[in-house]
């Protein structure tokens, strides 16, 4: 396989975007990535679009074909990649393989989702369609409910408290204030979301023990990366950041069939593969973007990915090690919690953030001297997970 460079990145701010269609968002993010790379009018061989549910949210399918038309990239190859909340990660994997194999030289990967076209409970239902139709969905299970059942066990086993969960929310919303692309721009305090007798009014139960401020918002948004070879990237203008490792692993569809439901095996395996391929270790990572759709997941993933031993993630968080300026800053972008989680966009947005960090372009939230980055895109409830290692070429 030949090295693959992320030569350009682009995003649009994640928020409720009533004025934009899904296609408007995908097109703008895609153009931003092409322009960031300084691609000009050079041709693109192939386009991958990460999107979970445009048919259900927006009554539009075949969105990759529509996008190449909008961007005048004809006759480029175009595919939509659907892998639940890991659609963005899977789209990048496909783009990576196309370039690494020599099949394509220039590939555009765009992830996006327009979720706010439907009302909240409808969005909850659409997302719940990824659960098992007979064994889970019919009972009214939601993704926050899966997180609630997981969190109850994890908290009991490892001594994680609601205070720890709130610390994740506060850290990530604080980081989000430094990210102009983040959906949630609001400072929160422990008193406001947990310790005040009336904090439950601000942060009501969604699926006990998961409260409102343990959940990512429902967002519209899109993000894009332009992937190419070292040879072509050297002719463009940006510092080289390469995708050095990719891992992907799956686990049982239902939580109950895992011998230990607190063990996120797919996270461990995907991360191990990505580190092995990159030839570096978790201790070499300077900045990480984890999939904190629920606060408990940031803690659990930080352990399963190999950054901390099991049960130590919450302690590292307590010591401030995962803040910007700490030993391993996690989610300097604000994560899903603050940046938002337009499902198909997330895996791509995580890689965009890493590229900004590794190039030193992350502004006020810059992790100083970051050279090695890691991202984790968590699909289903941990049944399909992708991990990425990115490095700045010196």
């Amino acid at each position, binding site marked *: 396989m030949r090295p693959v460079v992320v030569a350009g990145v682009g995003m649009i701010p994640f928020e409720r975007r009533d004025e934009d269609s899904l296609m408007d968002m995908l097109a703008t993010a895609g153009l931003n990535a092409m322009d960031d790379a300084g691609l000009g009018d050079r041709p693109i061989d192939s386009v991958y679009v990460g999107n979970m549910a445009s048919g259900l949210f927006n009554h539009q399918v075949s969105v990759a074909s529509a996008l190449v038309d909008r961007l005048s990239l004809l006759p480029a190859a175009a595919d939509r990649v659907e892998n639940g909340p890991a659609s963005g990660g899977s789209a990048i994997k496909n783009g990576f393989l196309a370039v690494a194999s020599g099949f394509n030289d220039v590939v555009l990967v765009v992830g996006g989702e327009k979720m706010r076209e439907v*009302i*909240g*409970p*409808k969005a*909850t*239902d659409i997302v*719940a369609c990824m659960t*098992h139709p*007979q*064994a*889970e969905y*019919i*009972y*009214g*299970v*939601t993704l*926050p*409910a899966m997180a*609630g*059942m*997981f969190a*109850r*066990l994890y908290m*009991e086993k490892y001594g994680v408290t609601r205070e720890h969960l709130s610390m994740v929310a506060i850290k990530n919303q604080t980081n989000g204030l430094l990210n102009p692309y983040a959906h949630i721009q609001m400072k929160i305090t422990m008193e406001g979301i947990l310790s005040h007798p009336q904090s439950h009014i601000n942060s*009501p*139960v*969604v*699926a*006990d*023990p*998961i409260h409102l401020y343990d959940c990512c918002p429902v967002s519209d948004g899109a993000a894009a990366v332009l992937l190419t070879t070292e040879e072509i990237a050297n002719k463009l203008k940006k510092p080289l950041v390469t995708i050095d490792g990719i891992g992907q692993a799956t686990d*049982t*569809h*239902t*939580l*109950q*069939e895992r011998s230990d*439901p607190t063990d996120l095996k797919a996270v461990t395996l995907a991360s191990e593969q990505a580190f092995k391929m990159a030839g570096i270790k978790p201790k070499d990572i300077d900045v990480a973007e984890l999939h904190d759709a629920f606060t408990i997941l940031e803690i659990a993933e930080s352990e399963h990915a190999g950054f901390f031993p099991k049960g130590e993630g919450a302690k590292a968080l307590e010591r401030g090690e995962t803040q910007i300026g700490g030993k391993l800053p996690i989610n300097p972008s604000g994560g899903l919690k603050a940046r938002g989680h337009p499902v198909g966009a997330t895996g791509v947005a995580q890689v965009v953030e890493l590229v900004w960090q590794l190039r030193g372009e992350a502004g006020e939230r810059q992790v100083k001297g970051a050279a090695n980055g890691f991202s984790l895109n968590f699909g289903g409830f941990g049944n399909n997970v992708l991990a990425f290692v990115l490095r700045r070429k010196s």
Partner: protein
Amino acid sequence: MKTITAYKCNKCGLVMYPYHDRCLNCKGRDFKEIAPTSKGKLLTYTVIEQLPWGMDERGRVLGVVEFDNGVKALGLIKDDAPRIGMKLKVNWEPVREMGGEEIFGLTFVKTK
């Protein structure tokens, strides 16, 4: 009583629910259909306050139950004070209405 169908691998004995075409442990393809026993214990649960579209209620308790014969399944817990480890008895009742039709599933109440 009508209930779910679980599957026991004829080669290695693994009990599975829902259905898989090959055993999750040994890849075997022959299974014996088994019904869950009448009682089990609660492994984990959540109380859902924000339900999906079409379900107009609050405080719905869902949990994973391990039956005495090893079958594990998600179901509706009809108890206001659930706790991990509590003993439950199973029923087969409507759990949701979809498209004007009542959908039946596993429900559980406390037992000794």
